[in-house]
């Protein structure tokens, strides 16, 4: 099992099984279009790596809460479909997520889990090595004070680890 502080490439915090679960999660929350090159989704830009790096900066208690939610995601998938979340079809994954986001018992925890995925995409995040399209281009977001705005990613372990300067335009 990986522990925080090792290595210079992700995952920094997530275990290998959590990492692949999060990759499946971001794919379910923000799926690619028919052609992932022209319409990338969360997994293509690296939202799962953003998720992992964000966990690095969370206090232990909050990190554990996220881990509990990830376990609950698998539990619900197994309960409803007899398989772990990452082995479900896209439709089944969405059904599991919707039920967790609709249920009053789990709603806020899964809002927060979904928020980590969305931050890793709609903030215009991309992995340091990714050169394809990103969310702002896909949604048409732009204009004065937006085009070319400096995006400082240096708070993320993934950018700090690569000493890449941590900014994009």
């Amino acid at each position, binding site marked *: 099992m990986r522990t925080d502080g090792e290595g210079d490439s992700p995952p920094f915090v997530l275990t290998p099984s959590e990492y692949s679960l999060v990759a499946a999660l971001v794919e379910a929350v923000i799926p690619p279009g028919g052609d992932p090159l022209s319409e990338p989704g969360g997994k293509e830009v690296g939202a799962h790596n953003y998720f992992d790096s964000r966990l690095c900066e969370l206090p232990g208690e909050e990190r554990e809460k996220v881990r509990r939610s990830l376990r609950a995601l698998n539990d619900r998938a197994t309960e409803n479909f007899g398989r772990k979340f990452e082995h479900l079809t896209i439709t089944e994954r969405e059904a599991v997520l919707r039920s967790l986001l609709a249920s009053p018992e789990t709603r806020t925890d899964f809002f927060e889990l979904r928020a980590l995925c969305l931050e890793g995409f*709609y903030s215009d995040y991309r992995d340091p090595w990714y050169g394809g399209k990103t969310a702002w281009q*896909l949604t048409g977001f732009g204009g004065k004070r937006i085009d070319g705005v400096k995006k400082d990613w240096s708070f993320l372990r993934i950018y700090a680890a690569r000493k890449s300067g941590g900014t994009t335009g």
Partner: protein
Amino acid sequence: MPDFDAVIVGSGAGGGALAFKLAKAGKKVLIIEAGGFYNTDEFTRFELQAYRNLWWQERFTSNFRVSGGKLRDEIALGMGRCVGGSTTIFTAVAQRAFAENIDAWYTETKTVNDLGEPISLSDLIPNYEQVESETGVSKYLNWDSGVRRLQEGFTRIGYPLEPVDAYINPTSCDHSGCLFGCPTGAKRGSLLAYVIPALYAGAEIYTNTYVERVLLRRIPEDNSGRVLEAYGVEYTDARGNSGKVSARIVVLSAGALETPQILLRSNIPDLAAHSSSAEQIGRNLAANTGTMVFGTFEETLNNWEMHPLSAHLIQFAREKDGGFLLEMSEVMEGPLGFSLVVTDEDGVPIVGEKLTSAMKQYPKMAGVFVSIHDANNGSVTLDGHGKEVFYKPVVREDLARVSKAKELAKQGMAAAGARDFYGSIFISHHVQGTCRMGEDKRVSVTNSNCEMHDVARLFVCDGSLIPRVLDVNPSLTIYALADRLSRHLLSVGNTGLWGGS
């Protein structure tokens, strides 16, 4: 000698305005702010950075848990955490309270004016006029594309929109948004209108500094029956070091969610032998519970180039007229904020293809922000580990108002040509009522001059004071209450507070 005449905790509408007025009068003032200092040239349209720098992290009510599973709806509490507080990230709507809102303060808690008479709107007019002048309030007529589009529809259904009064200099606003700090300086939040002038007037500020508790000591019983007195605060600074600072008066202006927590962490209910007024700390939370309706139009609006909420439909705002207010247009100013709040029409946050197809339509969307007159039926408490717990029931009457308001919003939008509607989570930016003022100690925390019933020299100056929920955005009333408190503190009768005789 105390270190300061006044230590003010929080720099939003209440704290900033009060700090300026006391500093200008020559008082030695310290502002302590939990968030960081960011000025006009540091505000960015990189949403993620703005949320991280200027906003409290996402916080929700715990209604389901606290109610033992009876209440199913939760409210996201979206507040500012930076110098200027929520006024740095608010949408700058400057609205005086209705006369019946202020009349309700006497009914609710026996709040009185300087003559001991029931407080009324006319008592606050000089304060409103003063702060409107200082913050440059004017009608906002320079509507963006989304509002102009919505106006066509609402006019068509017989409810034309009106421009809001706003803390905006219309000549310098270039529609670069409000929620991430105003990058043009057109918005006159507490930062520009009061905090920076307060610093020029000699006030000091500690930023990224978290107040743990108020320092209290026993005193011989005073004329109001108080046996406790505040003499400073204990804090933790950005490096994690703790410190103490002393002052002649302590003012809590940390907002209706934080101020009661500071009082509870200061152990006031125990120290005040669980007096009825101390037991009121953190109760009576109201939120102007809100939500949004988004509609998709044929043409591209790019409605993130906006001064959000520049028009409203106010005729249903009074409780007796329906108790809901529609303000527009609102699409959260960027794809991240929008993706976070957007739901299907059943209120469930969307994911997958539904989400990505909604996001593709984002440039064609305009939205209506709905807020309601809700009840003072919530609370802010600390659990056994000292962790905050927010409870704000969304009750049947609230849901009925929200439903009516959303229906009207959709009608207006549809008449303007919108289709493909989306909803949002419940959200509040207007928390109020958790340390109410008034003369009836059984139902209030401070007296009508904002000083705690149980603790001398300890004042509250923020939305916590508002005894009964307002029907409109509360910031102007909070500014006005700060002006009113400053006049009280600087009055001849209060020279004793400052060490005079």
